């Protein structure tokens, strides 16, 4: 029983960190209607940025702050230099563009900053937090809480006037232009915010598994999260992350010892496949409103 609770709690915390990795994906999908296949490398780039600024001798919080600025600007530039030229092109071309970005970043960033795994310490001790008989990984605990806060902030953001305009843009680009909204700026902003979320996710994940190119592999759990939760739903990213994290912890916790490991990847891919078959819009994804 305690074992189960431990798997559950740690799984939930890891799940929240998946949510954070997936948050940028949803932000971009919401405003631009494009699945961002570069989401994993964006998180990796965020981790590299924070590690780089720390290696210059800056304190963690300043490194994170500068990292946020760098990735925010990077997000704006992606829109300005790449996506703006894709207006009127089929969505598949834009998807291919994000794939190209993923490949480019995955080669370029470790190439420039070093491919060997680097430690990233966020000053959280290694000793577990113990509640009752449940051992909680301290890093996961911090990560989960931080993820929750950041997701809450983005939920609040979409309630503001600026957020309302971003939701309008995500509904209908042409109608937005027609009432004077700058669709380009909204998409740029969503890439910028996705960059900031990527710094958050990158810092947390970098601190638990080190900073190297493998962080870009977070794309796959992130995709499982958004497909399960709904591609354009922020509450969905939260619930999807929790479910992916818990299932990916509890099931391997019992099965791995029997089959010899790596059931987590199987669970993740099963989640993707089953959701698409059973409920293609995900749990919270919006169906297009059709009045007859």
């Amino acid at each position, binding site marked *: 029983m305690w074992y189960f609770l431990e798997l559950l709690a740690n799984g939930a915390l890891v799940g929240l960190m998946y949510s954070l990795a997936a948050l940028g994906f949803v932000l971009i999908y919401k405003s631009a209607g494009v699945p961002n296949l570069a989401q994993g490398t964006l998180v990796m780039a965020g981790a590299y940025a924070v590690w780089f600024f720390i290696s210059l001798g800056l304190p963690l919080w300043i490194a994170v702050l500068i990292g946020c600025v760098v990735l925010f600007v990077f997000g704006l530039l992606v829109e300005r230099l790449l996506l703006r030229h894709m*207006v*009127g092109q089929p969505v598949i071309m834009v998807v291919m563009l994000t794939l190209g970005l993923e490949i480019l970043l995955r080669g370029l960033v470790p190439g420039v900053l070093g491919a060997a795994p680097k430690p990233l310490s966020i000053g959280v001790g290694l000793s577990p937090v113990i509640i009752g008989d449940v051992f909680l990984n301290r890093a996961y605990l911090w990560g989960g809480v931080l993820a929750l806060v950041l997701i809450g902030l983005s939920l609040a953001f979409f309630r503001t*006037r600026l957020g*309302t*305009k971003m*939701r*309008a843009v995500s*509904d*209908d*680009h*042409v*109608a*937005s*232009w*027609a*009432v*004077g*909204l*700058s669709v380009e700026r909204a998409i740029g902003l969503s890439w910028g915010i996705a960059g900031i979320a990527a710094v958050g996710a990158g810092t947390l994940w970098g601190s638990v598994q080190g900073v190297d190119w493998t962080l870009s592999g977070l794309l796959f759990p992130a995709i499982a999260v958004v497909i399960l939760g709904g591609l354009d739903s922020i509450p969905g990213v939260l619930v999807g992350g929790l479910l992916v994290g818990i299932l990916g912890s509890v099931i391997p916790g019992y099965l791995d010892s029997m089959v010899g490991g790596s059931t987590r990847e199987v669970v993740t891919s099963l989640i993707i496949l089953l959701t698409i078959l059973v409920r293609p819009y995900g749990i919270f994804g*919006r169906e*297009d*409103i059709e*009045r007859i």
Partner: protein
Amino acid sequence: MPKLTLENVEVIYDKVFLAIKGVSLEVEEGGMVALLGANGAGKSTTLKAVSGLLGPERGAVTRGTIRFGDDDLLRMGAPQRVARGIVHVLEGRRVFDHLTPDENLIAAWHGGRSGKFDEIRDRVYEYFPRLRERGRSKAGYLSGGEQQMLAIGRALMTQPKLIMLDEPSLGLSPLLVQDIFAIIREINRKDGLGVLLVEQNAAATLDIVDSAYLIENGQVVMSGRAATLKENPDVQEFYLGGAGRVDYHAVRHYRRRKRWLS
């Protein structure tokens, strides 16, 4: 309101398809002008050329000028044209489905959080009280008529000097069309808002506008004051009541005569 002037405007889609061929028209200060024509005549294309919405459809103005007062609109992006006071209510309403009506209005507001916002929103709700009642449900679930009201109200939130309406009567009951036309006329009279109204239904439209242009196959074939046009026998035959009666011989005859006239 500055005067809107189109001169010899030509629009090409996909670099090959010539959709309008040298359209010239004017909307005078505070004027209420209709652009009438059958399906595919080029009405929506003309409006999109003015509002700057051809880009996403891979269309472009390839010849001619579009001016609003002293401003050359063709040098501006769509949001800039809205800032100058031109707003386009799209064909098929296109409200923001997943936002509430109130959020639809907020999204179209460009000023800060000032008292002006409340004033203008209140005015929209005065024109369309139904919207206030439906304020909390998603706009996608409003009835067609309510959505049309919302589309117009949303456009008014941009504080326009000229509003372009693309077939606002589409799919609405004749009674509701009358209501909406009456409100448009009222806004036009009271606030001096210029109106460029695209319609297929010439009969109802010619009753409320000052003047009109008839467009066919991407060309303006006739224009004049509404009262004059209503008297014109060709207009009477082909636009006022000729519906359902397709007489191709007569149509050709009309076209030929048209060429002599112009």
